[in-house]
């Protein structure tokens, strides 16, 4: 039960950093969604804000860790110019080529949207804090941006998982 260094980095990229982001989304969304006077007391807001701040910034950091390890560590191995690289193997096989031309090409670009949007969300939750309870329109806007960040990460994560199945990095 050993992993090569490349496999370990791939696991860190997708199954640790990326997974933490995706899993934390549900809690972050629920926390932001319920930040209304009808659902929480003042004491509840104080308690919830602390968790929201920790959660949002953790997600933003995980999103950056995911894309940076992906682009600068794992992706170079994927696209190495030798014939045995995952990219080369996928392109050489007509039945698998679309995994690269569509799957990887979409994943590698859209994934970068997640940290940009997640950082904006974390900043706004920090800056406005408990004022978001009364700024309903802004809170909903943040929820939408947060959801788009999740979607971007989900697309990247799903295709990453499939690509590592079809053409694993070893």
């Amino acid at each position, binding site marked *: 039960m050993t992993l090569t260094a490349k496999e370990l980095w791939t696991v860190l990229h997708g199954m640790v950093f990326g997974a933490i982001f995706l899993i934390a989304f549900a809690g972050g969304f629920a926390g932001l969604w319920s930040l209304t006077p009808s659902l929480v007391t003042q004491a509840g807001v104080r308690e919830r804000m602390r968790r929201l701040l920790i959660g949002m910034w953790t997600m933003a950091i995980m999103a950056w860790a995911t894309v940076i390890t992906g*682009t600068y560590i794992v992706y170079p191995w994927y696209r190495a110019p030798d014939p045995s690289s995952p990219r080369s193997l996928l392109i050489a096989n007509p039945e698998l080529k679309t995994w690269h031309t*569509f799957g990887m*090409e979409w994943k590698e670009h*859209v994934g970068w*949207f997640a940290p940009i949007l997640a950082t904006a969300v974390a900043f706004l939750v920090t800056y406005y804090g*408990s004022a978001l309870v009364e700024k309903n329109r802004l809170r909903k806007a943040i929820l939408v941006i947060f959801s788009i960040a999740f979607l971007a990460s989900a697309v990247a994560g799903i295709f990453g998982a499939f690509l590592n199945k079809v053409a694993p990095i070893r």
Partner: protein
Amino acid sequence: MNARTNSIRSDGVAAAAVLASGIGVFVTGVLTTMAEISGALKAALDWYAPAGPLSGKAGTGIVVWLIIWVILHYAWREKEVNFGAIYALSLGLVALGWVLTFPLVFEAFSG
């Protein structure tokens, strides 16, 4: 409500953050498609050879995002802006960025 939250009622800060992130996403999308059209641009975006032009596409998007964010934050932080319009514009930019990074779109421009 404490003094800090009372003093930051302005939507300008939110508008700056949202619009800047929309612009960052849009720029990344534009560069993705333009790199398929222009070989010279593609080469210029090859900031880190092992990662190829993706390094420059994402890098430029990040740099533009951060610069725009700082500028707009300081320009709008004391102001009440039309948040609704700016938010709609930002979502439009994000949508365009998404479209321009969709393989069926940008690969249609491949030489």
